């Protein structure tokens, strides 16, 4: 297996593509690669022309294109590539002994079915209909990720790891989209099935710790918590954060996304040695009716744990997650061909100034292997116990062994 990564922060799509292509072609020539990659993962800031990217990929003969928008830009080569909120990054993968295919679809009214069909279509394209791949690489519009995971599992079962992130933009304006080689969708999903000829290993973690407070959801609807322990959710959340996040909601909903980055809510996943582990949900909007909107579904009866994080932990966590992925696969940095890293867009915004250090840590952990990091508005992956879940403020990494 062979991977190469390239990125550009040119604002102009053509120039950005040209720069990325130039970088890739030079690396291919250096590594003796003469054919198009079997899989091309493209992450781009939302300002770029998706159709142009697809056209270039088609022209290059790329059989499988997996694309999604990222917040601000990408990180690769030990640096953040997001100058002026422009970033276009690509990870190219060659694996003659494997099978790879992507399929994008609009989520529509039934995101679970849409995801299942997209998965089945990708399997068909890979020539592996009915089989379970080694990994599902997922790109999905924010909002209905849980249903999408269920749909994918309908097709490949719960034993296949699903890793990916929710498409993002720079200002939460809904400019995100996902795409494959043929189509792109704002409210859609792109599923890539990866049948690899070499092992893959992954880690999916957060950098937060439980705080003092906890409660039970007593009224909720979708991603909105109306009450915790019978009390308005906004009031409870303000109390749990010591009043640090008590927005003025007299005039309407208040965006709390930035402030809440270090104070997410956690849902218990289980315990190791009686130490509980949580799946995070990121509060985004405080509503005048006391409701608190999140970037993840919450159900009545779920136990919520106030969580706390810090700039230091979020800065150091990405590199540690990459290292954890290597250990998970029993791999040394020199054993891997490359990696994909998903870093929560909220976290990125919270530690924006330290992002070069984050990228450097990741690069160091991977031993300088080609990698592409993306910034998302939700992260999907297998939690403790192996179940695929959707969470917020998470960091994940998948490493591809050379052989």
């Amino acid at each position, binding site marked *: 297996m062979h991977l190469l990564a390239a990125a550009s922060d040119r604002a102009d799509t053509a120039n950005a593509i040209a720069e990325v292509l130039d970088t890739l072609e030079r690396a291919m020539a250096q590594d003796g690669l003469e054919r198009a990659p079997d899989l091309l993962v493209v992450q781009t800031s939302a300002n770029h022309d998706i159709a142009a990217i697809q056209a270039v990929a088609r022209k290059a003969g790329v059989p499988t294109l997996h694309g999604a928008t990222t917040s601000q830009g990408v990180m690769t080569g030990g640096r953040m590539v997001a100058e002026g909120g422009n970033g276009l990054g690509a990870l190219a993968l060659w694996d003659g002994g494997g099978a790879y295919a992507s399929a994008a679809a609009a989520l529509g009214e039934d995101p679970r079915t849409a995801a299942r069909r997209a998965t089945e279509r990708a399997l068909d394209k890979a020539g592996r*209909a009915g089989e*379970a791949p080694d990994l599902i690489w997922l790109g999905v519009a924010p909002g209905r990720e849980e249903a999408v995971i269920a749909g994918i599992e309908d097709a490949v*079962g719960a034993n296949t790891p699903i890793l990916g992130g929710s498409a993002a933009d720079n200002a939460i304006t809904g400019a995100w989209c996902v795409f494959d080689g043929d189509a792109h969708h704002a409210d859609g999903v792109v599923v890539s099935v990866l049948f690899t000829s070499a092992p893959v290993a992954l880690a999916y973690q957060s950098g937060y710790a439980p705080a003092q407070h906890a409660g039970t959801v007593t009224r909720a609807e979708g991603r909105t918590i109306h009450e915790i322990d019978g009390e308005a959710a906004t009031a409870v959340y303000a109390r749990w954060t010591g009043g640090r996040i008590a927005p003025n909601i007299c005039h309407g909903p208040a965006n709390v996304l930035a402030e809440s980055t270090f104070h997410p809510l956690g849902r218990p996943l289980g315990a190791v040695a009686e130490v509980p582990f949580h799946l995070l949900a990121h509060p985004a909007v405080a509503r005048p009716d006391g409701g608190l909107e999140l970037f993840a579904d919450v159900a009545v009866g779920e136990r919520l744990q106030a969580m706390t994080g810090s700039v230091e932990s979020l800065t150091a966590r990405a590199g540690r997650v990459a290292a954890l992925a290597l250990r998970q696969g029993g791999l040394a940095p020199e054993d891997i061909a490359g990696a994909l890293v998903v870093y929560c867009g909220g976290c990125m915004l919270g530690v924006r100034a330290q992002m070069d250090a984050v990228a450097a840590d990741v690069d160091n952990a991977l031993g300088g292997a080609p990698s592409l990091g993306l910034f998302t508005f939700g992260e999907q992956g297998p939690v403790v116990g192996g179940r695929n879940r959707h969470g917020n403020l998470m960091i994940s990494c998948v490493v591809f062994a050379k052989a």
Partner: protein
Amino acid sequence: MADDEALREALIELEQLRAREAAARRASDAVLHGLTAITEAGKPTAALRALLGSIRESLACAETVLLVRETTAHPTPNTVATPTPATAPPASAEPATVVRYATEPDVEGLPFPDHPVAAGRPGRLVDTEAVGWWDNAPEILRRHRAVLWVPIALPEGGAGAILCLDYGVARFSPADQALLARLAGLAAQALATLALSERNALLAGVIEGTTASVAIADARDPATPLIYVNPAFTALSGYAGEAVLGRNCRFLSDEAPDAPERTRLRECVAERGSGEFVLRNRRRDGATFWNRLSLYPILDDEGLPSVLVATQVDITTERAAEAARVQAEYALAQRAAAIDAAQDGIAITDPAGRFVYMNPAHLALFGFEDEAQVLGQPWQILYEPEQAEIVERIGMAELARTGTWRTEILARARDGTPVEQEASLTLLEGIGLICVTRDISARNRDERERARLRERLSAAQRQEAMAQLSAGIAHDFNNLLSVITTSAALMDAAEADAAALARIQAAAARASALVGRMLDLGGRKRERRSLDLRQAVSEAGELLRAGIPGRIALSIETGPAAAAAVSVEADPTDVAQVLLNLGINARDALGQRTGEIRIALDTAPAMLPQNPALGRIVAGVDYACLSVSDTGSGIDAEAQTRIFRPYFTTKGVAGTGLGLAVVAGIVEEIGGALTLESSPGAGSRFTVYWPLTSTPPCPALPYLAPLGAVEPDPPNTGREVFDLQGRLVLICDDQAEVGEGLAAILERAGAETAVCTAPEDALAAITEDPDAWSLLVTDYDMPGMTGAALTEAVRAVRPGLGVVLCTALPKAVRRPALFDALCAKPVTPDTLLGAVARAAEAAAKESPCES
């Protein structure tokens, strides 16, 4: 990093470590479980099935199967012990995937979709209902929803896979896949063990069951004792295993220890080498046989000989067959040489009619020097276009119809000269034409010569018959004329019309002249000359051979005394007449039976026959004996008395009655004799005694004058008056009225006469009183005795008695000198009286006392 975060990270890693350890422990347990199952199962096939059961338990699935994709048609190993289910696909050369082993025995041998094996990689099928190929899975497996498989290497080199099946959808995880991959290694080893076991069992079975004798000796032991012999060895040698194990197999040899082949074998064994030997061995029952022995060592893992293997084959029959083959090749070579050396030309063409073989005689017949000049050439090169067209139109049609064709045809030699060819063609399907040919130019010439001879003989026979007929008519007619003329002469001219008498006498004279000319026309002019009778007999014999059928053996022999020329005075046609008539009678006497005709020529024996059937044997005369004998029906005594008479035949309308009469005439003419020995059923032998010219002529029997050389005495034209007073003349003629006429003429001249019609009476009268008679006037052709014989007989009684022969066939008289005078009928008084007067004078000269 905060302590809490560090703790959680450590816990996660601990959890991951536990998971990895659990997976490793699971894998170890599964491997151990599998090894235990293999070990406890004992036999390789059971071990493989036990391993599949162990895998099923380790992966907690419903079923485990082992698929193989067979690229060549051969029975699966388990079918040796377990018959292939009826639903199994027929053996074919097309690759096909089947279930070779399974935890569910009922599916073993069933066809299975090719997909898992063809993939050549692991796979996890989430839900079988989502894929179409699963519809082709065995029915009893179709209810399974999840499938996990990994490929497996087969010892025989084909592709295979181990499958785990379960009823739940998405039942198998990547960890399951990793575990199965590990266990597949065990399965591969079990398969290899099974294959090795089956191979060993197969080899053992083959050695035990083969009809070739196999003996194995311990090569590590200097004595090289036998440690194994198979049943075929026992069958070959008669020695059971227990009787020979531990012994060196030299006890089988029937050859001397220093025999070359045995020495070579001993050296090979000593070197632990390999080789082939042919030895004469001895069975336990003492019978010997020829043994072709192949010896070779088997090396251990260090490359040292551990055992010596000897295979033995009884080639006694083979050697005999080889000897027979050599003999057959020799015989074939002989035949080929015979064909090459055959005087007849032999050629073979291919189906297209082009020569592929031509023997030297054929080549020579057509003027070719070398076979290469004709090989590949069409047969038409030997014929002019017209003849080739005949062969193609008639011959090929006949060959197509009957397979053979025989013809005589004019061919063409290489230089264009014609070749009179007899060809016998045979069509052999798929081979071509076989042509046997010979040059019949000489034969045709001979045949033409024989035809000419036959024609000449036939003409002679016709002429002879005509002569016989003419003579008979002339004889009778002259007798009648004689009566007329003598009667006319006796009439008194005064009492009769003188003119009328003159006309009667003139007419009688002209009639007599006419009869004489008729005899001249019917008679054959014989050309007697001195010749070698051997040559004449040989030629006549070959002429006869042409008319003798193949069932009758004709031999022509000349005795030792005839080694030199056998000289006789004869007309060659007479020789041919005698031989052909006797030979044809002999042929006819054999009828349709097989038999033998023998012609023999030799000089006569010392003891000559005293009473020949024809002619007379004269003492002092040398004869050649020419005999014709047959094994035919024979001749009864009554017929023997008549067979030489003209027109007597025993053949009915097929016979002329002239053959033996002609023979008789010739025998008489040559002064020979003929004897006949025959009896009914015992065959016949005619022997002609032919006087040799080396013998001086008998004075008492002047040699025969040629026919027609004798002229009757001329008439007495001088009207001389004869006085026969006092003379007693005896007249003998079988025609009474002729005799009486003659008597009347003589009596008119004064003689006394006595007339008799039988020569025996005449002889009796003279014998009774020989001196009483003055003269005898006799006819020639009379029954029982000719005039010549009567004359001789009378002179024996009364030497010097004058005899006048008065015959109707004076030219047929063969010994005219025997008589004192001769006159031809019809006779005139003057002629008769003149003849009588000359005879009387002659007799008086010989007997002066009488005169």
